[in-house]
């Protein structure tokens, strides 16, 4: 049995009178790099804060690591969290941060941490405040991974990094994933970066889950159809997620597999993750959620009701 690394049901979080997240029901299986995607204010950080126990739900429930209450001692023990902008104690050196983290956790792989920092060329005596953004992010990630977590949660880990640092950071994440089998949940609005690393996608919009599923499955069940604009309104065979009208030609992102018939005078192309995410982000009413009664065969607008 594959456990769910994060499982929510009817989860909601309200700050004052505003719902940052509502009616969020999802199950992220273990063993993935799951990307949490959505526009600013969609509830990504809120969902992650709930998962790591920094926030308490206003409605519904959330469990982690196969049924542990979020924020419980066992959950804290098994989850490492790197918050947005990688907060570190700026006046502490890398060595002090290692020592600090080791003291605050049951497990800490000092050898791994020192080796990694050595590979990255981060001197142990350097203070966190004197490091570049990339080095700070790497230090925070190293501290998290040295805890040998079952789940690594990253909130906008690469938003502040330059492309090289971004690449290095994600390479570290993927190595840890491959070596230790740590599950990863990360939020990002840098779609291009996710293509390379994520194999599970959760799309949040306006505080609700819009799309959730394995990337391969999502890509296989969506097609981009290109055809004459005059016929765009007649297409009704498969649910249309997003319509992009041009002068003569129109692009339709539809829910269809490679086997589905293509209407005459239309062409079908596979979609990539960025196109898929963009299409859904532009159509907050559309949805693609796992489950037998949802998704296929119904109009997008009905799915989320």
């Amino acid at each position: 049995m594959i456990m769910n690394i994060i499982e929510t049901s009817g989860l909601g979080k309200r700050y004052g009178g505003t719902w940052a997240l509502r009616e969020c029901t999802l199950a992220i299986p273990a063993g993935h790099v799951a990307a949490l995607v959505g526009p600013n204010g969609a509830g990504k950080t809120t969902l992650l804060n709930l998962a790591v126990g920094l926030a308490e739900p206003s409605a519904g429930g959330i469990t982690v690591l196969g049924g542990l209450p979020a924020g419980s001692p066992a959950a804290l023990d098994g989850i490492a969290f790197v918050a947005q902008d990688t907060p570190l104690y700026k006046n502490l050196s890398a060595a002090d941060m290692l020592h600090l983290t080791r003291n605050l956790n049951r497990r800490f792989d000092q050898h791994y941490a020192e080796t990694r920092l050595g590979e990255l060329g981060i001197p142990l005596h350097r203070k966190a405040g004197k490091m570049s953004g990339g080095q700070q992010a790497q230090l925070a990630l190293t501290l998290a991974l040295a805890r040998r977590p079952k789940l690594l949660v990253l909130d906008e880990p690469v938003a502040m990094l330059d492309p090289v640092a971004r690449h290095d950071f994600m390479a570290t994440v993927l190595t840890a994933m491959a070596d230790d089998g740590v599950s990863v949940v990360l939020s990002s609005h840098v779609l291009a970066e996710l293509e390379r690393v994520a194999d599970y996608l959760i799309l949040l919009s306006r505080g609700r889950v819009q799309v959730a599923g394995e990337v391969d499955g999502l890509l296989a069940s969506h097609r981009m159809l290109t055809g004459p604009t005059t016929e765009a309104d007649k297409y009704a065979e498969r649910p249309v997620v997003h319509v992009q009208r041009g002068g003569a030609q129109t692009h339709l992102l539809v829910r269809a597999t490679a086997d589905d018939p293509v209407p005459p005078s239309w062409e079908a192309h596979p979609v990539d993750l960025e196109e898929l995410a963009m299409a859904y982000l532009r159509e907050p009413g559309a949805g693609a959620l796992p489950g037998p009664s949802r998704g296929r065969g119904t109009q997008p607008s009905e799915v989320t009701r």
Partner: protein
Amino acid sequence: MTALTMPTRPGHDAGLRPVPWRRMAWVTWRQHRAALGGVAVFLGALAVYLWLTGLQIHHAYAADCHPASSLACTINFTGRYAVNVNIIRAFLQVVPALIGAFAGAPVLARELETGTFRFAWTQGFGRWRWALAKLVLLAVVVAAAAGAFTVLFSWYASPFFAAGYAIPFATDLFDLLGVAFAAWTLAAFAIGVLAGMVIRRVVPAIAATLAAYAGLALATTLWLREHYMRPLLTTKTNVPGSAWVVSQWYTKGGKYAFGAHGSGIVNAVSQLCHGGNSGLSPAQCLTQHGYTAWTSYQPGSRFWPFQWIEGSWLLALSVLLIATTIWMVRRRAA
């Protein structure tokens, strides 16, 4: 992959041993050594000064104050050192507030202001345990430092009590002696950490701590302390010199006439005693006219009971404030 072979049953890991408490000792020391060092240097410098001047004071007292009423004592002891003790006792009033503001307020406010609480509170140690360990450790250290300082100050000030220049019950000495100084320092620290948790910003939390401490200390000195025990009442005029005179007033025919200060007594004296030209003191003059002078006072023997009362309620207040802070750490949503 190991992730897939992990236990999937809830509660399997629930019995895991928490991270030992003692690990927070290093964490607390490493994170707050600058603040603790600041407190140590500050109190240490004051202590060195008190010790050096204290030696001179004790020497002068031993040389010239037998008896304490001698002219030599007045000139060489009180005349020379009274200014010193008066400046010191005024300055020490603000020391607990400074410790609370600069060592207490930033403890949580800085974590919240810089976002590092997201790091600290998601470690395996657990956030409320983290807060409890850190706050209790710091509180004990700060209170112990203040307590040690009090011992020195009591020694420094003792010749002034012996010479009858000051009494331990004096409002600006009582809170520097006994257990009160440590208790006030502890309370200031507790006010500081709670202010930091509530306000979440270092500088406003420091300001709020100073204001709250000043309010509490003033209210205690002006209104609260005199009520710890019911004052003794006397109509005699020779109240012991070590006593704290709480208030004095006059009665006539069993009814309250006027207080010992203010316009009532001034009017009475100017009407009845011919503006003081009768050759009698105002008090004697008023007694002649049938007024009775009343004094309510706390005898000097109540110094230690009062110390324990003040220490106890300040300790209880500090525990309450720190417990509230920890409860907020536990409850606060990110």
